[in-house]
């Protein structure tokens, strides 16, 4: 029978309508697959189900009775727990406490009945961790764990409470093969125990393996639902993106010219090791790996953010030493970071100021600001990327995610680099802007740039790259030519398989 039913749910954020009249239903003892492109609104839906965000409209029924979650605690009490996509935890607290924060167990008896019961908390924690067959002490401080382990703790958190509805938002994104196996077992257990599971993932094979039914979102709208048995992967994809896959990644192949960037044995004591590759004019080199595979760290070392322990970098055959980003910029390397809000944009500042920032002296031809010159530059690159804004002095903060990303790419093109590194360039931006970014990558290589594309999205990597490097736990696992790269092979390599 139906445990949970959503209807007419809408939610908009400044700039985006994340959800628009969405419906969804979960049944006991079933796994529901929720699919949709980045930015389709999946996580937003999760936030609404867990009481973190309030829907603008629509109603939520549990066992047919309407509920209104005033706070995440209400949702928790109503028996809904979730593994959130981004790991939101307390780095300075222990594993046990991270799992129980907000609803610590109390002694419940005697004069101290309201006191937190640490022993029970620890015991319970080790029990849950044991179920996941991971060996983490409940007393470890979270800061000491790896990203993957943190994700496991996140999973444990969701399972720590015997809830009737468990939501998993891309839970396997950061897990290794073994850990993924364990997770599948858990899902099976939950099913057997008559719980309802909402499973969000971009990996189709796992969806087909464990899900019973599916729901597709696109641009925050409900597209369709049904049972896994009577749908094919291609049908799902078509529903997700609204057209057929091959059109989504308009790959332009240009002959790969002479080597511009050469990296040899780039290494870091804790994050990555022995990264070597060559990159030629007009080439798009894809870096694939699980979240937390160390790609960003490697790229950031290349860009002078983190100091590598060894390794050499050559631009056009000339060896360069990169001590800080400005060295990299001077050498012709540009890095569009993955975390737009924190590393990329300076949100309160204007489009113009953002675009000119890395080379503000060059633009103004001296220490004194020349607004006309700056605006001219901003206009040139802004228009080249078709940034949609009311005016160039508009704060980047109130642009849509896609347009923010365009501004950032414009910012880095303005430094006219030889190599541009795009780290998760389409993460969480809507379909339209996404296509625009992909098309634009084509233009870049045509204009003779060399592009490094870091992405956790398999279709994007397969669709856009000339060559693919797969990283796993900080090391290069395998290299593919475009021709020989298959989804299966790449995923296997990324999850530590041969």
């Amino acid at each position, binding site marked *: 029978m139906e445990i949970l039913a959503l209807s007419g749910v809408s939610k908009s954020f400044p*700039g985006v309508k994340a959800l628009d009249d969405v419906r969804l239903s979960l049944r006991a003892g079933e796994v529901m697959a929720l699919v949709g492109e980045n930015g389709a609104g999946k996580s937003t839906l999760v936030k609404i189900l867990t009481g973190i965000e309030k829907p603008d409209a629509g109603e939520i029924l549990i066992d047919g009775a309407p509920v209104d979650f005033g706070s995440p605690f209400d949702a928790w009490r109503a028996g809904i727990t979730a593994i959130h996509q981004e790991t939101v935890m307390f780095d300075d607290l222990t594993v046990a406490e991270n799992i129980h924060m907000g609803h610590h167990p109390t002694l419940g008896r005697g004069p101290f009945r309201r006191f937190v019961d640490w022993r029970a908390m620890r015991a319970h924690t080790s029990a849950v961790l044991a179920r996941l067959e991971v060996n983490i002490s409940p007393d470890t401080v979270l800061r000491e764990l790896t990203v993957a382990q943190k994700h496991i703790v996140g999973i444990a958190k969701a399972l720590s409470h015997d809830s009737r509805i468990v939501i998993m938002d891309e839970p396997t994104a950061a897990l290794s093969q073994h850990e993924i196996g364990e997770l599948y077992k858990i899902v099976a257990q939950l099913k057997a125990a008559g719980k309802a599971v909402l499973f969000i993932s971009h990996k189709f094979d796992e969806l087909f393996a464990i899900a019973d039914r599916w729901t597709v979102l696109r641009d925050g709208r409900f597209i369709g639902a049904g049972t896994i048995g009577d749908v094919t992967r291609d049908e799902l994809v078509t529903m997700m993106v609204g057209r057929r896959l091959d059109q989504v990644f308009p790959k332009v192949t240009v002959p790969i010219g002479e080597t511009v960037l050469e990296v040899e044995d780039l290494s870091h004591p804790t994050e990555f090791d022995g990264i070597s590759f060559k990159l030629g004019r007009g080439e798009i080199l894809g870096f694939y790996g699980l979240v937390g595979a160390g790609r960003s760290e490697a790229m950031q070392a290349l*860009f002078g953010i983190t100091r590598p322990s060894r390794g050499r970098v050559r631009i056009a055959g000339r060896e360069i030493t990169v001590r800080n*980003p400005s060295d990299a910029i001077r050498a012709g390397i540009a890095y569009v970071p993955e975390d737009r809000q924190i590393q990329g944009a300076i949100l309160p500042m204007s489009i113009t100021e953002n675009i000119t920032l890395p080379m503000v002296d060059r633009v103004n031809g001296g220490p004194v600001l020349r607004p006309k010159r700056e605006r001219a530059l901003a206009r040139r690159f802004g228009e080249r990327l078709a*940034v949609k804004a*009311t005016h*160039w002095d508009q704060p980047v903060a109130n642009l849509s995610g896609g347009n923010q990303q365009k501004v950032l790419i414009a910012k880095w093109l303005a430094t006219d680099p030889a190599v541009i590194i795009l780290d998760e360039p389409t993460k969480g931006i809507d379909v339209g802007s996404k296509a625009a970014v992909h098309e634009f990558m084509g233009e870049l290589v045509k204009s003779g740039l060399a592009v490094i594309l870091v992405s956790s999205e398999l279709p994007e990597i397969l669709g856009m790259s000339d060559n693919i490097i797969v990283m796993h736990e900080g090391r290069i696992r395998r290299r593919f030519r475009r021709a020989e790269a298959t989804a299966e092979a790449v995923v296997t390599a990324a999850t530590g398989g041969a």
Partner: protein
Amino acid sequence: MTSLRYEVADRRKAAAADFWLRWEVLLLVLLGIVMLVNSRLSPWFLDYYNLLDSTFNFSEKAIMALSMTLIIVTRDIDLSVASIIALASVFMGLAAQAGAGVPLLVLIGLATGLLAGFANGAIITRFQIPAIVVTIGTMSLFRGIAYVVLGDTAITSYPAGFSWFGQSYLVWSIPFEFVLFLVLAAVFGFVLHFTTTGRRIYAIGNNPVAARFSGIPVDRYRLVLFTLNGLMAGLAAVLLTSRIGSTRPNIAAGWELEVITMVVLGGVSIMGGSGTISGVFIAVFVLGMMTFGLSLMNVPGIVMSVFVGVLLIASIAVPILIRRMLRR
């Protein structure tokens, strides 16, 4: 809000007023009120010479407020400025006792401030410790050193010429201190608002990480700003010592908070990234005129501090609450 037009204007319609503009208007109105009320309440207030003399009471603090503005715009804070004054003043005093000449004294004052500021910046950036913690430490340390050196004694043996900096008037009996403040305000205003350096300072204040990812040497900037702040404190030490012609370890006690109050009242967000020199400039006069007016009515300084405290909070709270109401 993103418009769907592809035609993107160069700048916003003039109609929409900037917030900072409104802030400065608010301050100007405030200043007007203060002047009006004071001139009503005291026959002595609106007197050319009195007003000019009253600038003696805040010029040194105002000068420090200028560099403090830059510090706060980059999300930092420096609680040690007043202690730096004490330290610099002590070293000048020792030099004076050793018979140093006026130029050397000034040099020593400035150098001491510069080094103290550099020490702050170095510790903060090298160990990545929040500025507030470090400067609470150096606040005790610097003044502490002053106490250790001076103990319960005072140094008053300054050469005659030294008094010029803090006591002399230029044309139309305008105090030198005040002129110096005006000049420095112009310089700081220009650097912060019309140069690429200023642009980078705002970038750092708004988002240090992104600033670093954009090739700005964030820590070097912070180090320089703290050093500059120290230098300004050194300058203030020269002026103050010259004005009162004596050095005691408890000199300028509690000034750090008054300086920060000036800056915050000037509309500089303690969260960094916003605020203008012109705002601080007006705030200096709001506070200066208010306290002078009250003192003309022989209101004790401690009672004034009630006005100042309330003014500080209200001036921040009122706009927030109004904006919140408008959103409703």
